[in-house]
């Protein structure tokens, strides 16, 4: 039954230009970034590996941003547009509802990733880094995006409001992004080092650094960056389970 919800969301997003507008925006952003990186007088002086790392961060960053915005409204809109009641009056189970909803922003991420592939190939020309770049961006990005979707859904089930969900999810995303963008030399203190080790975005960026700048391209050479992302996803899954339990207790329709 989750497939029905997934397809409904995909069709809704495509027919209303909601997601397609995001895909267009993502491709314009990738075009702008890669064109600047490859042609701008100063930026072309970056090492190619540095340039690829920057592009990798942009791809994951744009993906996370778009998916978080999409996930913020995908559940709450059912309550705001009063469609939740008729939906839950059917035999649809909450877990199917959530799984179907989860697959929609995840599909959006996959589409953003696919759009980024030609840019990766162009930017990696001559470096033999294209395949490892694509592989790691996909794996790291998918794990990170999945964690953030689960987190956003948990917030959406608690708030049932797109605006509140978006604001909260954005603040958390920013809180994760800002320290991840600090240079490694600034993360010398014990607090920042710990934050850096558990912060999913930090792990994604560090892994891309390892792959693209230090040529540690195999999965085995980057294994240390994956467990924090998996743990982040599991913690967010737990949070979503707790939010779903509370949601059931409150009832599908919450009396305001």
């Amino acid at each position: 039954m989750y497939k029905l919800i997934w397809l409904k969301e995909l069709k809704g997003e495509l027919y209303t230009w909601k997601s397609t507008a995001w895909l267009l925006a993502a491709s314009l952003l990738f075009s702008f970034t890669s064109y600047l990186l490859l042609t701008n007088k100063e930026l072309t002086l970056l090492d190619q590996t540095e340039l690829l790392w920057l592009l990798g961060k942009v791809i994951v960053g744009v993906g996370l941003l778009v998916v978080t915005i999409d996930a913020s409204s995908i559940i709450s809109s059912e309550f705001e547009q009063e469609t939740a009641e008729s939906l839950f009056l059917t035999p649809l189970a909450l877990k199917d509802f959530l799984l179907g909803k989860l697959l929609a922003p995840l599909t959006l991420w996959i589409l953003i990733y696919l759009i980024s592939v030609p840019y990766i190939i162009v930017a990696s020309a001559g470096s033999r880094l294209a395949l490892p770049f694509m592989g790691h961006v996909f794996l790291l990005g998918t794990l990170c995006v999945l964690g953030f979707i689960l987190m956003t859904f948990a917030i959406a089930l608690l708030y049932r409001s797109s605006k509140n969900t978006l604001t909260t999810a954005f603040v958390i995303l920013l809180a994760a992004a800002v320290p991840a963008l600090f240079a490694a030399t600034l993360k010398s203190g014990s607090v920042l080092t710990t934050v850096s080790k558990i912060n999913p975005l930090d792990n994604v960026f560090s892994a891309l650094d390892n792959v693209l700048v230090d040529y540690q391209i195999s999965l085995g050479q980057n294994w240390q960056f994956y467990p924090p992302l998996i743990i982040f996803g599991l913690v967010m899954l737990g949070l979503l389970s707790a939010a779903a339990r509370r949601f059931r207790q409150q009832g599908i329709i919450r009396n305001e």
Partner: protein
Amino acid sequence: MMISVKNVSKAYEANVAVDCLNFEVPTGEFFGFLGPNGAGKTTTIRMLTGMIAPDSGEIAIDGWSHSDKSKIARLLGVMPESRGFYNWMTGEEYLSFFAKLYDIPEKYAKVSQLLSLVGLTERKHNRVATYSRGMKQRLGLARALINDPQVLFLDEPTLGLDPQGQEDIQHLLKRLNAAGVTIFFSSHLLNEVASLCTRIAIINRGRLVAQGTIGELQIQAKLPASSLKDIFLALTNPANV
């Protein structure tokens, strides 16, 4: 017994919405459920349809507990108070989507039949966003009927319809009831309730104040030969409560 409600209560923090409600609706009955605004009608319907859980008491639909959602979802057809639609879908797509959720065999035939039943065949390829309020009401009714329900919950089903639209819906509901569908009907249009329902329950401030046929209600209200409107006003007037 199709619907059984025993000692059901529901409170939202300090506000008691439904207070120890008891009534039964036999199979095949056209049951009217009346009450002034804020009396607890919608809360009661939402508890009966499994959308919210009661704080206490027991609810059973055709013998199944209301908490057994997967069982009762297939028995119920509901036209709820909230009237949201997926506006980007066409009328046909909307009904097909719900037919798939119920896993209905021959769903396309069923969708066509229902669109014809509610008079939306001509507009089936139009987006729901372009429908008038009355058309949306009829689409909502078609959705409530998509799973051939044994019991139909209707919360203000004719609200916003023109007289012809009201007449069409009433005619359709009579046909469904004659075919054996139990109907739980909530409306503020008392003439409509009086003409359609075989038995009526009136609640006020979350409590059941009277139930029975019109004749029984006249006796309970001590207003012989009076209209349902007079009975309703007498039983729910704050001065009399």
